[in-house]
């Protein structure tokens, strides 16, 4: 008996010693050690590559991982205004010619004299030219094997002239680009621009497509030792985290923080415990999670904000279905759907201030916002109005079943991916359509892209992601030749407006064309927007200063990482 007690006591003592000793070590991230200012900020998924131009790297997570590293020419601010990055630029970019009828659409960008990379090499117009070439479609012949995720803007460029710190861009004949200022900004496909001199240092000739392709692969595969921002990456990988420290050659105002650790965390369920435990200081997750929001709101030192994000949910109808080709039936279906009920059930608890989306492209805070659903019955859940539309169009109820000329209407395939939000939504839609005599059979899918491109749906709910840059949206959503116009909508007038929007010479004109297209689309009852999915942000309000969300930018809260500071 004595021996057993002695063993137990020894085990307990050893455990206690380890626990106490490890407690003395100071624990995980988020703690200041030796007076240094350190922050641990979560990135909500694994970045696919070290740069964001490629298909694999094209995500907000890569952009956020590179915050404070990649230099860019400007970005949209939280209040939806655009601000040039005057640390990097010598002056605001100049539009030399905005009328393609009078010559090539042309602009120039001049970088600041003191702008240098972390190795001391000056930033030049050549950096912009090479970044442009890296982001072009391989068919353009500049970069062999490159797989840029969104090369439309880059492919419009005919030529780039470099003169020291200045690069002048000319578009192809007859083309204009209302988003010209965004080619190298925080929202571009690269999220900024790359150091061209590193290609030469590694022995690659950037004017040789094969060698530029090698540079492209190298940029995406290798952890950047270089930086053109207030921080530089000193440690990390693509699986666990990156660690950043100040860039000693940063010429702008010195960043207040000494060190930022960015762990990749794919499980939002862990946020609350990790935050309370002091392992993380905050995050700006990509997805809405009511549970996490409600739990965080109960944590004393957590500042939580919830607001409309970039992704908006909508219900689309497949016009290839013969019955659904009738616009009156579509109008009745959209009228029977109660958007407010869907939004409230999904987001009411965590975000009671939600607003329904009444413009497919512009958010309520955009200067171009126009309410296209004012006076519309679509989305109201007004069953009487829906029934009236159907009766006027000759539809009849046979018991509980809607018929036209004795033929049953439906049943329709109601599809979506199996997320919590969409699951709730399609169930509500199913019951709302049942009230007008339409049977909708819910079918979930894991392969949204395949299902949409194969047109294996009658009614579908999915999401598009918006951006302050909008000029290509109408073209992508509704142009009869767009691969993303899944439901097969076709209207010559809309096609023309969409083409005008993408080739307008300024944003105001592009917005006007886009709104005109929406005026035509809405009565056609083809796409019913529901609402923008809310995004949330949380941060340790006791520790952090100058940290807030920017829902206009892919960088989110890290958009001003160089200004983050520790309280006190």
């Amino acid at each position: 008996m004595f021996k057993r007690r002695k063993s137990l006591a020894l085990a307990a003592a050893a455990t206690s010693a380890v626990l106490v000793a490890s407690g003395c070590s100071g624990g995980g991230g988020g703690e200041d050690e030796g007076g240094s200012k350190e922050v641990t900020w979560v990135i909500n998924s694994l970045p696919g590559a070290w740069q964001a131009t490629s298909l694999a790297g094209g995500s907000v997570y890569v952009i956020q991982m590179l915050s404070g590293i990649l230099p860019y020419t400007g970005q949209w601010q939280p209040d939806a205004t655009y601000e040039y990055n005057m640390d990097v630029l010598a002056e605001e970019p100049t539009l030399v010619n905005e009328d393609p009828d009078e010559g090539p659409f042309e602009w120039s960008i001049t970088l600041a004299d003191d702008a240098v990379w972390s190795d001391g090499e000056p930033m030049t117009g050549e950096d912009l030219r090479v970044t442009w070439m890296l982001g072009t479609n391989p068919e353009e012949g500049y970069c062999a094997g490159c797989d840029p995720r969104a090369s439309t803007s880059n492919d419009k460029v005919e030529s780039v002239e470099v003169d020291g710190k200045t690069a002048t861009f000319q578009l192809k004949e007859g083309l204009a680009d209302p988003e010209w200022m965004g080619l190298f900004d925080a929202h571009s496909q690269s999220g900024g621009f790359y150091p061209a001199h590193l290609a030469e240092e590694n022995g690659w000739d950037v004017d040789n497509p094969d060698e530029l392709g090698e540079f492209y692969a190298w940029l995406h595969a290798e952890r950047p030792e270089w930086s053109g921002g207030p921080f530089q990456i000193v440690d990390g990988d693509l699986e666990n985290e990156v660690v950043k420290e100040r860039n000693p050659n940063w010429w702008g105002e010195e960043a207040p923080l000494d060190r930022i650790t960015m762990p990749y965390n794919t499980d939002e369920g862990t946020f609350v415990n990790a935050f309370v435990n002091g392992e993380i200081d905050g995050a700006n997750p990509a997805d809405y999670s009511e549970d996490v929001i409600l739990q965080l709101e109960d944590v004393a030192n957590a500042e939580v904000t919830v607001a409309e994000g970039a992704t908006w949910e909508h219900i689309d109808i497949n016009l290839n279905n013969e019955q659904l080709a009738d616009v009156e039936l579509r109008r009745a279906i959209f009228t029977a759907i109660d958007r407010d009920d869907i939004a409230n059930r999904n987001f009411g608890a965590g975000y009671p201030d939600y607003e329904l989306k009444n413009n497919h492209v512009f958010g309520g805070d955009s200067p171009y916002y126009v309410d296209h659903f004012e006076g519309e019955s679509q989305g109201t859940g007004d069953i009487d109005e829906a029934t009236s539309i159907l009766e006027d169009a000759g539809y009849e109820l046979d018991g509980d079943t809607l018929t036209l000329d004795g033929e049953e209407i439906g049943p329709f395939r109601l599809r979506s991916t199996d997320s919590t939000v969409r699951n709730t939504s399609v169930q509500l839609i199913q019951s709302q359509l049942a009230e007008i005599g339409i049977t909708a059979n819910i079918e979930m899918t894991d392969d949204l892209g395949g299902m949409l491109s194969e047109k294996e749906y009658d009614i579908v709910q999915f999401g598009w992601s918006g951006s302050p840059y909008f000029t290509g949206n109408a073209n992508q959503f509704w142009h009869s030749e767009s691969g993303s116009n899944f439901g097969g909508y076709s209207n010559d007038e809309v096609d023309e407006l969409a083409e005008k929007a993408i080739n307008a010479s300024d944003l105001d004109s592009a917005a006007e064309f886009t709104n005109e297209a929406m005026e035509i689309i809405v009565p056609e009852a083809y796409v019913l927007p529901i609402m923008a999915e809310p995004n949330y942000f949380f941060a340790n309000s006791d520790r952090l200063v100058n940290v807030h969300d920017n829902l206009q930018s892919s960088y989110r809260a890290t958009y001003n990482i160089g200004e983050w500071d520790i309280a006190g």
Partner: protein
Amino acid sequence: MLVYTVRRIIGAIPVLILASILTFVMIDVSGDPLAEVRMAQPPPSPEVLQQAEERLYLDRSMPERYWLWVTGIGGNGDIGLLQGEFGPSTQGPQYDIGSNIAERLWTTLRLIGAAMVFALGLAIISGVISALRQYSKLDYTLTFVGFLALAMPTFWFAGIMQAAGVKFNQLVGEQVFATIGDGRFRAQGEPLWDQFLNAFAHMALPTIVLMLISFASWSRYQRTSMLEVMNSDYVRLARAKGLRNHTVIRRHALRTALIPLTTVVAIGIAGIIDGAILTEVVFQWRGLGDFFITAVDNNDSYALMGWLLLSGVVVILANLIADLLYAVLDPRIRYE
């Protein structure tokens, strides 16, 4: 024994081939690996998509792709198990499936290794104690703990352990336990003791979760097995010969009672890998479990095939080791 081992390994090859064909077909029909890319906004150009299809060999038929995956003949040098290449990944040209599996295997082994050793030790001790003190309060307590651990879903139990770790930290006023990550970058360059403490902080909670999941069933098996042996004739004979109880249990009963557990543990290795998937996700360890989830999320066919192949090899090897251990534990078994 050597001949037997070689024969078993050769016999496992057709099993692996059949399993790989089945899983390849199932993964292949489960969805388009480029579905997410096609849905991107704005969408990539058709040329870039075609290039991606060619890189992933999606322009070839399914049988061709399987043949390529095995042999690499006709490929671009990035595919072919026989050439040591696992194939291209949907996660980009820079993502090397083979080196990722190797790196993550080490991470998972750290987690599983510690959990298995502790689980096995605890299971044997508690199983033996429960058997020797059958129907005592201690037996009932251990049985209750065992069934409780068996009944708890891994992800839920892991969440509870995280919350408990946080509470403990708050209680002692220090961060003894970490709830996320394996902390690999946190103590680099620090003294060895600090590295140990960092590893302990990050390993403790996930190890306890994985350990208890396995311990629960193994201790039940050990108890039953021990009870059966204790009531056997040769144990009674040993006692009748006047051997001390301690000697009877340790040298005669326990050794025999371990044989069924050997089988259960070997089969349980597959189970513990499954358990590791959830545990790694909840504790954000970048091991093979997380590799599997990431591959599923990205429709990464060749990465999934690599993972499944490795799992298959592990299970076959574990069963082989179990068979070989029989001979060590039971003198009546000889592989000749």
